[in-house]
Structures are given as C-alpha cells and as structure tokens.
C-alpha cells in the first residue's frame, strides 16, 4: 500500500505560485525526502496533505483514504515548519492537550507521554513551561507532539532547523528507528546531507512542478564513474584504456606530487610526474571496473587505489534545479 498517493494535486493562488499537477507515490515504510529550492512549492504540498491548505484541483490519498477524511489524521503526525505552541502550558500539559485532539483516551495519553518525551530527550524538561524552552527544545517538543499518536505516517517540515549538531544526530537516529519500525516519514528539508543519509526515495520540485521522484541512489548510479590512483604514468599508457571504451574524464597529481610534477616538467622530464596521480574514468556499467583495471595493468600502470564514484544527492539536486525547464 502507498502511504501517500497524489494525482495531479494542484494549489495555486489566483492562478499563480503554489504547485501544479503533483502526482506522487510514497511507499509505506520509507523515509521520503522532498527537495526543491526556496519557493518551489514544497511547503504548499505538505500543507495540502495535512489539511492546512485547500487543494485547487486534483486528488490525494493518505494511508489508502481520501486526504479529506479526518479519521486518517489519527495516524498522521505533523511537525510544522513554523512550529509554535501554547507557551503558557508545560511540555506535559501541551502533550496532554494534543493527545486529546488526536482523540486518544486519557489512559493512552498517560502511557504515551513518557515514551515520546524519552524519544525526543525531553523527560527532564516536561514540567517546564513551553515559553521557557529554547527554540531547539520547542522543536523537540513539537516532534514529541507529532509522535504522540504512534503515527503510521509522519510529516516533518524542516525537523532539525533549530537543532544543534547533537540534536540533529539524535533526530536522525530517531528517524532511523522509526523507519526500522515500518513507519513512513515524509521529510521536507534543505539539509541534503541529512536526506542523503536517511532517505530511500526523493521527490524534487522545481517552480511548483515535480521534476523527479524515485530512488536517488539509483539515479546517482546512472552515470558510472571510477576513480583510480596510479603511480607514474605517461599519456600513451592511457590510450589503451581509452580504446577499451573507458573515457578519461579528469586527471590530477596528488598532494606534494603536483609541485614535483611542475619541477620535473620545467627540467624537461616526462609529461607526468613519477608520483601518484588520480584518474577519473567514465565506465559503461558498474561491472566494467575489473576490465578497466586489467587494461591499466596491461599498460604497465601501477594501481594503488580504485574507488567507484556515486554522485552525491547535492550534486544531483543541483543538476535538476539548475537545468532549464523543458
């Protein structure tokens, strides 16, 4: 079953802005990352899915039910981007209040409060007023509110924006635990390193339109590259590798070797230095790496290191958002 399924979901403001024709499929039990530059329509999409905005057109289903069905929200947690809570309540009172809004019984609320406070590391501060919390603590209590109904689906809009590095690490670990429990997490974040670690699948929105959705690692593997660290090499030795269908994309001397290379060149020495070099090859598929190595060895090149390259999420994201809209 899909946790979220949208069909041409559109929200525009007097015909402008927002997001258009978003058809998204988020499988259950995944951590799904939503990416896009500022103003791309990410928050608009999240707000529509949690019921804060009325869709202009299109359909959406959450956990198999129409998103307008209120009962489905009993199993949906949401941490808003601009989290703000009743600052005169204590952390525990706030959770009790939100527990009642979720429709939990007083006994369920009593049982869940210590659990969620423990999950977000706020047990010690539960009796303090929310107004006295730091911004990071308010974000943690917001996360506790979202976790209160033991949700099957969790919408987190920039969940670590106010957290310090330790807090971010804790939230990351929490999300990994939730993923392990089979929960679905829909994560909207600008922190690509965070998404890269946590997310299996991503969607990229640009100018209100969905430009990519799927497994980002699969996307990254479409362009196979391999980095090889070699010893002394002359250009003619590389020709045989190129002949085998491996395109040399870049080469650079490593560290101190580059200075020595300059020195040997000026003394009329070989074109490339006696020291180590990093070569970057494009290969037809991942299984071609041994063939590349064999051809390099056959050319008399000493090999010290071979590292298959996978594009980072940041690189892929930048590729998507900087290319012209077709």
């Amino acid at each position, binding site marked *: 079953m899909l946790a979220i399924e949208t069909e041409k979901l559109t929200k525009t403001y007097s015909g402008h802005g927002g997001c258009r024709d978003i058809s998204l499929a988020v499988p259950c039990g995944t951590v799904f990352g939503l990416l896009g530059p500022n103003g791309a329509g990410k928050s608009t999409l999240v707000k529509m899915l949690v019921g*804060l905005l*009325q869709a202009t057109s299109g359909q959406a289903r959450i956990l198999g039910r129409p998103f307008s069905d*209120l009962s489905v929200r009993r199993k949906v947690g*949401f941490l*808003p981007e601009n989290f703000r809570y009743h600052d005169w309540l204590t952390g525990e009172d706030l959770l009790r209040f939100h527990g009642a*809004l979720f429709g939990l019984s007083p006994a369920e609320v009593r049982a869940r409060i210590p659990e969620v406070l423990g999950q977000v590391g706020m047990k010690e501060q539960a009796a303090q007023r929310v107004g006295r919390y730091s911004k990071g603590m308010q974000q943690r209590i917001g996360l506790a509110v979202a976790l209160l109904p033991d949700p099957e689906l969790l919408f987190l809009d920039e969940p670590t924006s106010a957290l310090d590095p330790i807090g971010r690490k804790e939230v990351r670990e929490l999300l990994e635990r939730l993923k392990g429990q089979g929960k679905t997490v829909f994560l909207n974040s600008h922190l690509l390193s965070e998404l890269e670690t946590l997310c299996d699948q991503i969607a990229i929105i640009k100018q209100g339109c969905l430009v990519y959705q799927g497994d980002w690692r699969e996307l990254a593997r479409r362009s196979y590259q391999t980095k090889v660290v070699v010893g002394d090499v002359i250009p003619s030795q590389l020709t045989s590798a190129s002949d085998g269908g491996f395109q040399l994309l870049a080469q650079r001397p490593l560290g101190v070797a580059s200075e020595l290379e300059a020195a040997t060149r000026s003394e009329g020495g070989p074109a490339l230095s006696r020291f180590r070099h990093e070569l970057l090859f494009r290969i037809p598929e991942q299984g071609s790496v041994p063939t590349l190595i064999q051809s390099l060895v056959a050319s008399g090149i000493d090999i010290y290191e071979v590292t298959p390259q996978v594009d980072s999420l940041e690189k892929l994201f930048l590729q998507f958002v900087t290319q012209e809209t077709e």
Partner: protein
Amino acid sequence: MLTLARLTFAEGARKRVFLVILFLCLAFFLLYGIALDFASQEMMRLNALRGRQPVIQQIVGNQLLGSGMYFASFLMALLALLASVGSVASEIENGLLHAIVSKPIPRSSIILGKFFGYGSMLVSLGLLLFAGIVVLNRLYNPQILSLLTPFHLVYGALIFILQPLVLLGLSMVFGSALRTLTAGVVVTVLYVLGTVGGFLEQVGGLVAKPSLVNVGIVISLVIPSDALFRKLMTVLTVAQENPLASLSLGPFGVAVPPSNLMIIYTLLYLMACLGLALYNFHKKDL
C-alpha cells in the same frame, strides 16, 4: 470542541487584559459604591428637607443605574474585543493553529471551541458585574429597581451578556477573514458606530425627527450593541409599567425603547456571525 473550549477559557483567563479588566472591575465597584452612597445620602437629605422627591429620585436613580450598567457594558466590550480579536487571526499568523488544524478534528470545532471558551469567560465575568451593579443599586438606589421581578432580572442578565457575545461573534467573523490589526479596527469601528447610532436614535426620538430615528435603527441592525444597552435599561427599570419612565432621559436614558424583537434579531445575528465565522475558517488557507 470541549478540549479547545477549556483551553481557550484557561488561556483567556490568563491573559493580562483579563486581569487588568478584573482589577478595573474591582476599582469600579469601589468607586461606584462610594458614588451611590453619596447620592443616597444626598437623596435622604433632600427628602428630609422637602419631603419625598419621586421625580428627582427617578431621574437621578436612572442615571446612576445607567452609568453603572454602561460602564460595565463598556468593560465587557473592551474585554470581548481585546481578548478575542486575535484568537483566530493572530494564531493563523504565528502558526499556532498549524499544529491544531492538522489534527483529526473538524475546523468547525476549533471556531466553536474558541467561541464557547471566550464566551463562557465573558459570561462569567459579565454575570459577576451585572450582579454587583444590581446589588449595589438595591442597597443604595432601591427605588429605581422597585418594579424589578425575577423574570426581569434574568431577562436583563441575558441582555447584558448578549452585548459582549455579539462583539465576540463579530471578532470571530473578521478574525477568521482578516489580519489581526484589520479585524480589531473593523470591530472597534463597528462598536463605535453602534454607540453613535444609538445616540442618533435617542436624539431623533427626543426632537421627534423620524429620519434620525430610522438612521439609528438601521445602524442598530448592523451592530445591535447599543440597542441592547437601551433594552437592558428598559427591562431593569420595567419601563412599560413605570409611570415615571418618561423622565428617564439623559445620556443613559431611553427615549426610544427597542422592542423584544430586537432580542430575537440579536440572537439570530449572533448565530449568523458564528455561521459566517465557520464558513470563513472552513475556506481559510493557513
């Protein structure tokens, strides 16, 4: 809805404006009691010198009761406006409602919860004020309430608490459609308009100018707060059974008493306000 109503009541009662108005109420009771005491002594002195003065007692007594009720109504109006005008608008602006609207509750229960939360706070304080003024007048100004029956007392209390509830309803309507400041300005202007309309209607009645009376009536249909005050005064003094009622003029007197239909109209007006607020909030993008 009850969860939200309880929270709203607790939040409203914690607000500084509520505490300030509570303090003002205490100060008002003290000063008002002193004023009534002085007026009572002066009346007794006059009675001792010239014998019983029913006309003067009627005029002065009516003004004393009217001033007390007017000031109390004004305090309630202030509280209704200041405490509730931002209850929807500012909570939308600062994002407080984001975590609430996304819960498995209909949007209507948020508006109704807020209305009943603030409403019960206003009703509690309103009844306290109303009772205090009636008791003080019973002690020092008994003649003006001599015809008051339990029915009139309860009817008067209902009219008294309807005044802030009307303003609360208007605050909800505009607070769910406009920004906090704009909503506050609009409701305040309407309240002032209602007062001016009531004044025009009374002046029109005094100088027998039907056009002025009609303007006042139209304004009281737009915002019935002042008409409610005039009706309150006629109910408390049981004006239709009082032969001296025509002497009850002055700033707090009633030259043109509103009919009972005005109360029915106000109840419908309040329901329409709630309906409109529910509609606005249902359509609202947060």
